[in-house]
């Protein structure tokens, strides 16, 4: 096979009909562009969601206490007093558990600076910022010593700081919770809204022991945040927690729920992935239409160039040479169209990203898929016309009008 010569011939043939070549490519350009564009946008959206979920913390498992049911009234998750600090200690001893924080929640009116603000007051352990992957803007987290001594120390979020201490650094100041003065030891970095639209910065965090003894006088915790060593062991740790708690609670029914961030992430991203597949599917249809366009033009081209095929055969082209020539023309059209389409798709998604302030990600795998599939479409749609051309009889072809 004289591929090099065939390439040269195909190049000349395509350049002879620039406008037609361009219009033929358009189908593939639009198809590939649509695939790359939609994949980039939905990957970007997926990544945004993933980033938000991972801002809740990496490899995090949350243990909620069970439903509280009394006289037909059912409370929500975390309402039943089933999780205790002893449960927390038991979980802490499990392998692959790197950080743990028992959590108690309460809404309180907090006062400072002559201002007041209703906010979420959380009791946590010093591990909490690590679990939530949360940096301090200034100051530092309270210590284990503060937990042991039921210290009146607090760390506040950005929103609370803005409301109670406008234009000043709150670290070192005092806020009053249920009339008890808590000293602010740290200010958390701004984290923004979470997936569910809650302001994560509207928060005051105190040692869980202080919360349980000084603010709410509770003996149970609402939930337990656990950080596993990595995502691979997360299922194992989840199982161990379940086993340990079942054994400790000696109950037939599971009176708690164990959820991992991974599950949440999968649920949320499943939607955008499904959307992405839908878009890519629609785009793939237009790619097929583009392929049919190429087949159509190649068939026309074969008929139009019957005489040329006759001449080539007369001067010694074999059937295979003619086949390869037309095949290469079709593949060149679709491959170049694919490349332009990839560039167009990336360009389009970049513009959308810029205008709509949405992140876009173009996965390299999809670029390869788009290029390869456009080449394959070229081969498929080019084969029939090329085969038809190669089967022509040289004498008939030479006398074709």
């Amino acid at each position, binding site marked *: 096979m*004289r591929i*090099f*010569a065939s390439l*040269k*011939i195909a190049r*000349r043939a395509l350049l*002879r009909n620039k406008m037609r070549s361009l219009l033929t490519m358009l189908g593939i350009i639009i198809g590939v562009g649509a695939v790359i564009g939609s994949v980039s946008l939905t990957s970007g959206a997926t990544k945004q969601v993933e980033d938000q979920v991972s801002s809740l913390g990496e490899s995090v498992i949350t243990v909620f206490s069970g439903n509280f049911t009394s006289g037909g009234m059912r409370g929500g998750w975390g309402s039943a007093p089933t999780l205790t600090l002893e449960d927390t200690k038991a979980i802490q001893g499990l392998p692959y558990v790197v950080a743990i924080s028992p959590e108690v929640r309460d809404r309180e009116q907090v006062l400072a600076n002559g201002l007041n603000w209703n906010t979420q007051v959380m009791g946590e352990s010093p591990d909490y910022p690590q679990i939530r992957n949360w940096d301090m803007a200034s100051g530092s987290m309270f210590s284990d010593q503060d937990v042991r001594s039921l210290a009146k120390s607090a760390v506040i979020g950005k929103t609370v700081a803005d409301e109670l201490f406008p234009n000043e650094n709150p670290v070192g100041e005092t806020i009053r919770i249920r009339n008890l003065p808590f000293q602010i030891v740290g200010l958390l970095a701004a984290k923004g809204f979470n997936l569910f639209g809650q302001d994560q910065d509207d928060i005051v965090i105190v040692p869980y022991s202080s919360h349980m003894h000084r603010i709410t006088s509770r003996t149970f915790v609402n939930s337990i945040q656990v950080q596993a060593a990595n995502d691979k062991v997360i299922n194992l740790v989840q199982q161990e927690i379940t086993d340990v708690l079942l054994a400790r609670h000696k109950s037939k029914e599971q009176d708690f729920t164990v959820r991992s961030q991974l599950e949440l992430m999968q649920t949320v991203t499943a939607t955008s992935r499904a959307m992405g597949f839908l878009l890519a599917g629609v785009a793939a249809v237009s790619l097929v239409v583009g392929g049919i366009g190429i087949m159509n033009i190649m068939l026309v081209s074969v008929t139009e160039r019957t*005489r*040329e095929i*006759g*001449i*080539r*055969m*007369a*001067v*010694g*082209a*074999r*059937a*295979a*040479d003619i086949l390869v020539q037309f095949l290469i023309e079709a593949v060149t059209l679709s491959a170049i169209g694919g490349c332009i389409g990839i560039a167009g798709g990336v360009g389009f998604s970049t513009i959308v990203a810029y205008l709509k302030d949405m992140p876009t990600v173009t996965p390299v795998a999809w670029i390869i898929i788009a290029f390869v599939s456009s080449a394959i479409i070229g081969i498929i749609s080019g084969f029939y016309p090329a085969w038809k051309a190669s089967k022509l009889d*040289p*004498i008939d072809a*030479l006398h074709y009008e």
Partner: protein
Amino acid sequence: MQTNPVIKLAEIHKVYHTGEVDVHAVRGISLDIFPGEFVAIMGSSGSGKSTLMNMIGALDRPSGGNYLLDGIDVSTLDRDALADVRNEKIGFVFQGFNLLSRTTALENVEMPMLYNRHRIQSHEQQERAMHALDLVGLSQRADHHPNQLSGGQQQRVAIARALVNKPSLLLADEPTGNLDSQTSIEIMGVFQKLNDQGITIVMVTHELDVARFTKRMVILRDGRIVTDEVVQNRSIAENELQRLRQEQQAVKLAS
């Protein structure tokens, strides 16, 4: 003659099975053509000369008989082998020139080399194509497209294309059919010059004037050879051109 014939046809038959009636286009032709010959194959339409031409040109296979081209038995070859024979042994010149449009003269001449069994380097292709154009006196027009060339010039390009693979045989099918009388004589002059350099030429024509430029005339009728003779009073292109010019001057057609 001691040399082997370029073309050796022995009892060639060709039958077309079209519809209900079989058409017996060629009915037993035997013909030897030796190197350096310049043969005109003549006949009215339906005489079988086109069919014979296609078989000599390895575009078609005979239904019966043997055909040796340069010692190769062409009658038994398959499609691909026939293509190779056409590429290496035969140069075609057609009535309608059959150049590729929107392709320069040089690229047209290069085309047969693209199909050579052995790859020829790009620069060598160009050199050989330029040399072939030089032989027909058109090297100045190498980068012109066919639509920028006159009919005579287009036919010269076609001849250059036929010569570029150094074939054993130049096969011309009504090469002057689309040309005026003066250009026809010029083209015949090109053929005579090439023949003088030792190139074997077989030409199909129905014009006696044109056939007179050759050395040997083979006349067909109903698929058989009826006359095979040496041309008497052979026309020489230069003389004919001069005569034509004098006649044109007489009627003030040319200055």
